[in-house]
């Protein structure tokens, strides 16, 4: 199951499918003074307060914070699923006005479609991509299933998969339409530690191989230090970027390495510094 190398393209893959599998250039994101508030039963919650950040082409950025700090809201705004009250999001210099195929989201568990099998799920986004022949779509879907190590399970039903396998399918589904930005919303939060460790390795290799800009939301500080080029620390109420850490460790990184623990410790101390009054402690 552990992916140790990126597989070569299948010899039977047609030239047009090969074209579809070409690595597309990642794009940059510019979030400019984004604010967002929600009305709840107890009043208005300022989920995001004038948040600005830049993500460069091919960068892996992790957003960390306690629950309720607005990091998932920011991800949804970048995805175009929610609109900010004020401020703007630019993807490759163009304003984001709605969901778009160049920015795909990998959600937490349970976002896979249970009425489709594994292959059907990976094909879903591809079928919506114009200018492809059905044969090419199939080849492309199978390529990504191979990339995440699930070729044998292409006709399995979703409920038959383990949590880790489900997230591999979700990753393949998000990668298949060849987006330029991958947005990941706590994708590994519901998994056990061992499965998570495998996926840390896989996601780093796939990121390298497919060259994507990745924005990764998590409440797990070690996870953020393991995956991110940069880690942005969010503070809650109102949600703001509090601090920024650049992780200068060689890749692929091991979640258990001592250097990484040093970074995670520093991030954790900052996090505790401004969440202790909230009575909330992140992992």
């Amino acid at each position: 199951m552990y992916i140790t190398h990126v597989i070569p393209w299948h010899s039977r893959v047609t030239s047009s499918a090969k074209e579809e599998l070409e690595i597309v250039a990642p794009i940059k994101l510019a979030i400019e003074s984004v604010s967002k508030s929600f009305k709840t039963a107890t009043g208005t919650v300022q989920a995001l307060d004038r948040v600005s950040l830049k993500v460069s082409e091919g960068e892996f950025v992790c957003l960390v914070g306690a629950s309720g700090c607005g990091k998932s809201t920011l991800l949804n705004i970048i995805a175009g699923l929610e609109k900010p009250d004020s401020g703007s999001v630019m993807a490759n210099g163009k304003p984001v006005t709605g969901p778009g195929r160049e920015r795909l989201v990998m959600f937490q568990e349970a976002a896979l479609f249970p009425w489709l099998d594994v292959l059907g799920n990976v094909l879903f986004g591809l079928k919506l991509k114009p200018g492809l022949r059905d044969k090419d779509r199939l080849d492309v879907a199978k390529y990504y299933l191979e990339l995440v190590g699930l070729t044998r399970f292409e006709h399995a039903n979703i409920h038959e998969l383990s949590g880790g396998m489900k997230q591999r399918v979700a990753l393949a589904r998000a990668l298949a339409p060849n987006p330029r930005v991958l947005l990941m919303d706590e994708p590994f939060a519901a998994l056990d530690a061992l499965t998570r460790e495998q996926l840390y390795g896989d996601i780093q290799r796939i990121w390298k191989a497919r060259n994507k800009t990745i924005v990764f939301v998590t409440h797990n500080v070690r996870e953020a230090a393991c995956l991110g080029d940069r880690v942005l620390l969010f503070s809650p109420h109102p949600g703001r970027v509090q601090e920024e850490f650049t992780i200068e460790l060689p890749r692929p990184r091991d979640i258990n390495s001592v250097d990484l623990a040093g970074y995670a410790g520093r991030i954790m101390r900052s996090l505790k510094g401004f969440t202790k009054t909230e009575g909330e402690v992140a992992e």
Partner: protein
Amino acid sequence: MKRFASAAAFFGGLIILWQLLYDAHIWSPVLVPSPASVANYLRGAAGDGTLGQATLITMRRLLIGYVIGIIFGLPLGLLTARWNVLQDTVGTLSLGLQTLPSVCWVPLALLWFGQTEAAMLFVVVMGTLWSVVIATDTGVRNVPPIFRRAALTMGSKNMHLWLKVILPAALPFVVSGMKQGWAFAWRSLMAAEIFVTILTGFGLGQLLHFGREQQAMDQVIGIMVIIVVIGLLADKIFFSPIEQFLHRRWGTGASQ
């Protein structure tokens, strides 16, 4: 095979029990005919074509009405789920009419359409429609929002979103609504056929009615058996495979 054997043994046992009760002469044979005489009636009715004809007429009424009910019910349910204003109006009306036993439509149907096929169809459509509307509405409202969001990011919208995401996601609810609609339609059609003679064709319900008028208990029980068998077949041939497919895909239900 083992399950088939146990089912066969059970029904065989029921018939033997029936025969024993008949042999005991507790009741008059006019009220409790022997299994053989019922079988005899069915053989005769099948032979002279009345049974086949009646079954055909009843099934035609049922299927046409049922399909019309679904054709209107599905989109209506999707619409009430999509717009709250329709839910508050059409949805509430549907809920009210669904609680109305569908045989209650028979007097109105007769006054509107007279003793015609249209009256029968109307009763079947009313039996089907409201269950399908309500089940579709409930199904759509129970679709986890994350499915919609995931589909939106992949470029699904409008019709594609409704047909390829929301409707399939609501399918377990929709199918159980269709099953309920079928049951309601079947019951109301039988009631209508028993009480109203439609001159354009005698269905199974009418045969049942004539059996009573002639005090022909073998006919009454024979037709009841046919009605039960049709209900069973509809379930086994049509609904069971769909439900099993849903259970397999969704991973719900007891192990098969």
